[in-house]
């Protein structure tokens, strides 16, 4: 018995160490630092709840960042799921060329986020980008895309829809897995296309859809790369004399200032480690709540998702 326990401990040891050092320790430390003023140069100075007070009552950017992140949850996530589902349904109906189509739709998901974002900022350049040039030929004055605070987030959604391949492939597998006899009996009952979708397909794949939504929310809470790169490149006209990166975060007009971007700005541009820790503690509380809801209900979807082959 002792040997067996030692064996288990041996197998688990890397993870136990990793969890303590790279997870447990930082979280405890974040709480401690959030109660200090700390700039990494002089020792932490205790300030009590001052950081939280600034966070909740003064910092004008916190509200903006929270709103922007909620926007992602409310718009980007459902849009991606619906779009992926639509494509998967059409692919499932295709009799010929399904393999080719599937490859084409999956391909953009492979493009590294930095590269994809760079490409889209160019393609959606308000003046010379192909999209607005084509729109111009059609007599439409295209929007300013990444240069306009009300279009910057929708532009990121377009970028997100382009890279929806992973979700699409999962949905396609689930749709193809729906037992054929269910469709056939529905057809015999005289169900039309919409009714078959509503009463056969969707109920059968609902765990996978739920899974995709959950995953989307988790990713929305950490959305950073695309926002950082798009703002940095789109604001490319900013002066060399001013610090380009710091000034460009959230460009234009804080419309792409998502919560992780704000945290990055305070932690790794201003090096206010105490305040950044307070921001991360708040993020921890929120994402832990979301996570707990998911984990408590995990039996349902983890099992299903793993079994979608």
């Amino acid at each position, binding site marked *: 018995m002792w040997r067996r326990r030692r064996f288990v401990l041996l197998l688990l040891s890397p993870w136990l160490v990793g969890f303590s050092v790279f997870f447990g320790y930082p979280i405890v430390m974040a709480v401690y630092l959030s109660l200090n003023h700390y700039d990494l140069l002089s020792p932490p100075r205790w300030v009590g709840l001052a950081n939280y007070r600034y966070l909740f009552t003064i910092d004008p950017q916190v509200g903006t960042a929270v709103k922007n992140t909620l926007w992602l949850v409310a718009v980007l996530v459902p849009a991606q799921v619906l779009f992926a589902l639509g494509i998967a349904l059409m692919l499932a109906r295709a009799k010929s060329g399904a393999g080719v189509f599937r490859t084409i739709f999956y391909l953009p998901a492979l493009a590294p986020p930095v590269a994809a974002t760079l490409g889209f900022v160019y393609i959606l350049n*308000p003046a010379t980008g192909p999209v607005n040039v084509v729109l111009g030929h059609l007599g439409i004055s295209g929007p300013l895309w990444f240069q306009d605070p009300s279009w910057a987030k929708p532009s990121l959604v377009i970028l997100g829809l382009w890279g929806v391949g992973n979700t699409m492939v999962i949905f396609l597998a689930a749709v193809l897995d729906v037992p054929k006899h269910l469709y056939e009996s529905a057809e015999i009952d005289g169900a039309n296309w919409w009714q078959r979708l509503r009463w056969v397909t969707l109920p059968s794949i609902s765990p996978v859809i739920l899974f995709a939504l959950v995953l989307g929310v988790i990713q929305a809470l950490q959305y950073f790369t695309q926002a950082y790169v798009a703002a940095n490149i789109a604001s490319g*006209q900013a002066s060399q004399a001013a610090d380009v990166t*710091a000034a460009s975060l959230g460009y234009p*007009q804080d419309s792409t200032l998502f919560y992780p971007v704000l945290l990055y700005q305070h932690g790794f541009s201003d090096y206010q480690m105490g305040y950044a820790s307070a921001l991360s503690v708040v993020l921890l509380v929120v994402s832990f709540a979301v996570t707990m809801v998911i984990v408590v209900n995990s039996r349902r979807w983890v099992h299903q998702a793993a079994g979608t082959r």
Partner: protein
Amino acid sequence: MKRVVSTAALAAVVGLIAAAAAIGAGRAGPVKLTVWVGWSAGKELVTFKQVASEYDKAHSDVTIDVVGGITDQKITAAIRAGNPPDVVSSFNSYDVGIYCGTGAWLDLAPFLKKSNISTSIFPKATMYYTQYGGKRCALPLLADTYGLYYNKTLFAKAHITHPPRTISELTADAKKLTQRNPDGSLKVVGLDPFIGFYENVPERWAQSYGAKYIDSKGHAILGDQAAWQKMMQWQKSLIDWYGYKNLVKFQAGLGDEFSASNGFETGKLAMNMDGEWRVAFIANEAAKLQYGTAPLPVDDAQPKLYGSGYINGTIIGLPKGGHNVDQAWAFVDYLTTNTHALAELANGLKNVPSTTASASSKELVPDAHFATFLKIFNNTYSSTSPIMASGQSYTNLVQTFWQNFQAKGSKNLGGDLKKLDSQLDAQVKQAGGSSGGGVP
């Protein structure tokens, strides 16, 4: 149990690092000085490297490794992370409040004393933006000042005989010089005052209106002065005349500011507010351009301000945690006080020399375009922006505010500015500074 395991892991990690560090240590011969500078574009980095290699050749105890394209963020990150270079330099002074206030850059007072350098050899304006709260942690390495560039060919076509001196002249000329395409989009823009575009940041236009940031106690006073509102309303009305959307589209079609596709160099901007270094860029990239330089036009009600401009400059210092402090200081000393070195840099970069001696050096190549900026630099009303404990974030907050305003306008600009003031004060307090570094 957990603690034992994590301690063991930390010990293992530390061991690894110690091994890695040991590999790097123990070299002999000349000391390698790593020097970080902001220059990266065109001929600029080449010019600096030339000056550095002259020093390198004359001093056998050091070899100098110049790294260009450095931003304030990189400097800050490296110092915090404990692996800075030996010498650091930044294009601007925005973060001096952080550098001096936190000790990220070493206090230079003992070094200056040791080398017997009196700060009176530097122009007074540069002395303000290289210290914070009385602590000098940087020295000026050439200075920058801003003025108006105008395209003489386009001026002749529009029958404009002299550069504008007041904001209303500027506005009238800008409209006259603007050309539109048949579809209504902008072909040539008279003057683009869009905040965030090229060199347009609030502090440079604030100079033309005499608008101030802080009072003598360091509190933000943007909402207390009529100047800020007047300036922002003027800027917004000009932008609205072009059409906000038209202007943004036009800007998106222009080339990068620091490339040969710069909008002024390609003739798409008839006038442009820019720094003195543009003279060198035009000489290299668009030698045929017929252009002139002048001070920036000023508020019609304050004609005495004409001839002045915003001043800032490249700063240089020694980072906390740098290794070869003595050799590094010797190099900084040379760069910032040696007349020959400064003249050579000033010629190559077309920057304002930053000692009184070098400003009158015979080595300086005279240039009519550039002379304008020397005059602006020496004008009594020329000034710079305040050095604050929150560094760049301070001016960024103002910039974001103005960008919102130029896009959406405001029903109550005065009230919004007052709110901005309290946000600025709270930001400084949060950054750990009680007040600013004195009034510029």
